[in-house]
C-alpha cells in the first residue's frame, strides 16, 4: 500500500514550507460530558486550606497601591487596592489537583487583596472535575505531551485549561512574575498558579473561535532535542448546527516552530 511505497522526499527549497506546525489534533466534545464549576464554601477565610501551599503578603509597595504576594512554594503575584475607588482588588489563584484515584480537579480560591492595610482574605473556594479533551501526541512533540482540560463555567460558558505533566508551561506573553514559565518553575500538579497566568480560554455560545498560545519549556529534553520553548496553539469554539442536539465544543491543538508569524495579542 501507499504507506510502504511512499518515499518521503525532503522538501526542496523551491517547495519550502512557509509556515507549518507540528502535530495537529482536532476533535469535538459533547458538552454534556463536562462538569460545571461550583463554589464549595464562602469566606472570609484567614488561610488557604490547600495542602503544601501558603499565601501571604511579603512586600508593600510605596503609596500602598500594590503589594507583592508570595504563593508558596515559589510563585509570586502583585496585587493591590484600586486607590481611586478605595476598593480592594479581587483576584484568585488556581491549581490542578490529581486525586488518589488519578482523577483531576481544578481548584480555585478567590482572593481579596487590600494593599493599603495590607491584608489578604480568601473569600471563596471553588472546584470542578476536569475532563481531558485534547492532548498533543507525546510521540512527536519531543517526547512530551500537553493535555487540555475543560470544565463548564456555567450553562453558557466553558473554560479550557492547558495542563501540565511536569514541564514548565506558561502564556507566551506573560511578563509578570508568578508565571511558571517565567520562573522556570514546573507546573506540576498541585502547584498553584495565578489566575491570569494560566493558559485558559473561556467561550460563550456566540463567540468566535478563541485562541490561546503558550510555551512549553523542556528542562529535560530528550537527547538531541532542543531546549527551545515549544509553542502550542489551542483553538476552541462552540459549534452547533441544526443536526446537533446540543452545542459541541470543538478544539484543535497544534504546535508551532519557534519562528512566529505574528501575534494577535499585540506583541
Amino acid at each position, binding site marked *: 500500500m*501507499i504507506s510502504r511505497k*511512499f518515499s518521503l522526499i525532503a522538501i526542496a527549497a523551491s*517547495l519550502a514550507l512557509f509556515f507549518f506546525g507540528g502535530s495537529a489534533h482536532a476533535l469535538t466534545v459533547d458538552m454534556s460530558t463536562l462538569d460545571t464549576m461550583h463554589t464549595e464554601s464562602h469566606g472570609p477565610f484567614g488561610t488557604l486550606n490547600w495542602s503544601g501551599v501558603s499565601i501571604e503578603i511579603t512586600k508593600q509597595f510605596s503609596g500602598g497601591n500594590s503589594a507583592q504576594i508570595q504563593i508558596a512554594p515559589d510563585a509570586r503575584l502583585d496585587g493591590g487596592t484600586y486607590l481611586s475607588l478605595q476598593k480592594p482588588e479581587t483576584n484568585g489563584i488556581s491549581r490542578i489537583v490529581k486525586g488518589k484515584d488519578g482523577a483531576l480537579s481544578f481548584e480555585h480560591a478567590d482572593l481579596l487583596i487590600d494593599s493599603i492595610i495590607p491584608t489578604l482574605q480568601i473569600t471563596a473556594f471553588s472546584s470542578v472535575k476536569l475532563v481531558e479533551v485534547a492532548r498533543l501526541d507525546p510521540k512527536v512533540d519531543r517526547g512530551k505531551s500537553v493535555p487540555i482540560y475543560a470544565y463548564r463555567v456555567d450553562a453558557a460558558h466553558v473554560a479550557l485549561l492547558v495542563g501540565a505533566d511536569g514541564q514548565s508551561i506558561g502564556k507566551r506573553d506573560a511578563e509578570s512574575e508568578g508565571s511558571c514559565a517565567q520562573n522556570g518553575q514546573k507546573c506540576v500538579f498541585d502547584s498553584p498558579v495565578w489566575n491570569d497566568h494560566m493558559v485558559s480560554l473561556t467561550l460563550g455560545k456566540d463567540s468566535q473561535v478563541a485562541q490561546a498560545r503558550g510555551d512549553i519549556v523542556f528542562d529535560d529534553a530528550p537527547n538531541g532535542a532542543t531546549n527551545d520553548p515549544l509553542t502550542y496553539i489551542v483553538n476552541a469554539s462552540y459549534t452547533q448546527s441544526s443536526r446537533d442536539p446540543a452545542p459541541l465544543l470543538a478544539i484543535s491543538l497544534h504546535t508551532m516552530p519557534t519562528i512566529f508569524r505574528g501575534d494577535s495579542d499585540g506583541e
Partner: protein
Amino acid sequence: MHSANNGSVSAHRSPETAVASTPLAGPKVERIGGRAGAGVVLANVDGRRVAYVADADDRSIRVIDVEDQKELSTLPLPGAPAMLAIFRDGRIAATLRDSNEVAIIGGVGTARSPLQIAQRIRIAVEPIGLAFTPDEATLLVTSGWGHTLTALDTKNLEVRFTQDLPRDPRAVVASDDGRRAFVAHATGPAVSAVDLEKAATNAKTAIYKVPVQNISVEGEEDASDRGSFFAAQRHACQGFALAESRMPEGRIFAPHTLAFTDSSPDDSGGYGSSPGLEPEVFNVAVIDEDNATAMKSSLAVSVTTASNEMPCPLPRAAVSGKNGALYVTCLGSNALVELDGSVVDPQYAELRSWKLPSGPSALAVDDDNSRAYVFSQFSHSLTTIALDVPGEIAIESLALSERNPMNEKIAHGRELFHNTTDSRISGDGRACATCHVDGREDSLVWASPDGPRQTPMLAGRLAKTAPYGWNGTSKDISGHIAKTISRLHGSGLKGEDRDDLIAYITSLSTPTAINIEPSNEETALVARGEKVFDSPEVGCANCHGDDGRTPDGEQHDLKSVKWEQHKNFDTPTLDFVGGTGPYFHDGRYTTLSQLLTKSDGKMGHTKQLSKDDFAALEAFVRTR
C-alpha cells in the same frame, strides 16, 4: 464573428443527448472520497490508488498511479475538463468547460482497460461543477456562464431539469438527505441553496440565497492613533469551492474572499485602498446544511486583525477529511492550508500549510492513506503530501508529461496574473486575478481616485478597444497596466514580464458559443432588437457600432455625477455585457433593463420605445 451569449435564453431548455452508447466494461473501480466532483478524483483500481486529473490546458484526463508516482495514460478530450466525478460503477463524468458538454467515460485508464468516451451530453454554457446526490440517482452539473444547475438522471443520462441560478456558479454539493444542492458562485454575496424537489417542478421558490458576507463588520480602525471605530462592508467573492464537513456532519464549508471595496477618508489612492485595512481577506463560511443558513460566527471578520490571519487568495478547491480538517488550495499564493473544520470559523484555526508548485487548482484527500493530492495547473504537476508525517513535510511532485505545452510567454503571464505575492504587481496581497476572476470580473465596484469604478471584464474585450480605462485615459494596454498596478501599490512591472502579462490577458478565453439553437421566436426577437439598436432614434450604434462590438474609441459626457473628476467616459465594447452586471462605470444599475431604461438621455434614447421594442433591444444586447 463569435456568437457567444450568456446562456440565459436557453436557461430552462433541456440540453440534448448527443451520443448514446453502452458503458464500457472494465475492471471494477472503487471510488475514493465523496460524492462531489473535483479536478482530481481518486479510485482504487485493482488494489492500487489511481488519481484522475482534469488537465484543462492539455484538454485531457491524466491517469496516474499515485503509489508508483507514474503516469498510466492520457485521454484526450473534445474540450477542456473542469471537474471529474466517479460513478459507483466506475465510470467517470467530466465537465468540458469550453465545449458545453459532460463526457461520460468508461474504462479505468490502464493498458488493459483504457479510458474511452462513451457518451457526450450537451449542457448549458460552460459546465464546471459536478456532484452526485446521495442515492446517486442524479448527477448535478453547474454551468458558469450559462448560470444554471442541470440535473442528469444517472440511469439514462437524460436531463431531469435545469434550474436558473445567479451568475457564475462553480462548485456544487448535494446535502446528505438529497433534498438540496448548494452552489458556490465566483461572484456575488451568497451560496445558492436549491430545493431539488421544487426545482424538478420548475417552482419559482426552488432557489434561495445563503448570504456568506456580513452586512457590516465593526472594529477599531487604528486604536493606536485615533481609537476611532470603523464600520466596513465586506463583499464576498471568489467562491470557487465547497466541501461537505465529515466531522462533525451537517455543515457545508464555503471558502471565499471578503473584499473591502470602499475607501476610508485617508484613502491612499488605490482601488478600495485604506491604510491598515486588508482589501481582501480569506474567509470560510460554515453553512448549516439542514436549515441552509450560514453560521453567524463564521461570517464575522475583524477588520483590524484580518492581516494576522492566514491569507488564502483565490481559494480554488476544498475537501474535508475524516479527521475534521478542511483543506483549501490557495491559487494566488501557491499553498495548501489545513484548517480545523470543527470550529465555528475555520479560517481562524489554521493547523498547517504547505507551499506548492505554481497554480494549485484541484485537490483530493485520501483519508485511508493520509495523503493529499494537489494538481498545480500552472506548473503542470501533481503533488502528493503525506498528511500523517508531523513536524516535517513529506511532499513529492510529479511533473506531468507535456503534449501541447502552452506558449511560454502566455504561461508566464498567467502566473503573473494570479500572483498575489509579487510586490511589483501589488503591495496589498491582491493580484490581477483577484478582481478579474477567471479573466472576467468580480461584479464589484471599487473606490478609486476617479470615483467608484466597476471591474471590467478582460477576456475577449481588449482587442481593438483602445483607449483603455473607464475614462479612456490609457492609450494602450501597457499604460493601463501601469496605472492599475500603481493603484494596487505595486512597484511596477516592466520589460518581458509586462509583455508576458499582456500576452496572457489578450489570450484569455471567452465563454464559448451557446450550443443550443435558439427558437424561431428568440431569433426573431434578437433580429428585431438589432434593428432597434441600430436605429438613429435610439442611437446605441452611434457609439458602440452596429454590432455593439466596435466602439468608436471616443469619450462622451454621460452626465454621471457632478463630482466626477473626468466627465467623459470611454465607449466600451458590449461583448458579453449580458453576463457582467452591475452596469455603468460606477455599477449603479443592477440589470441590463435598468441600464437601458435609466440611462435614457445620457447614452441613447429608449424612453420612446414600445414594450416589445424594448424587450427586443434588451434581448439583442444580451446576446453580445
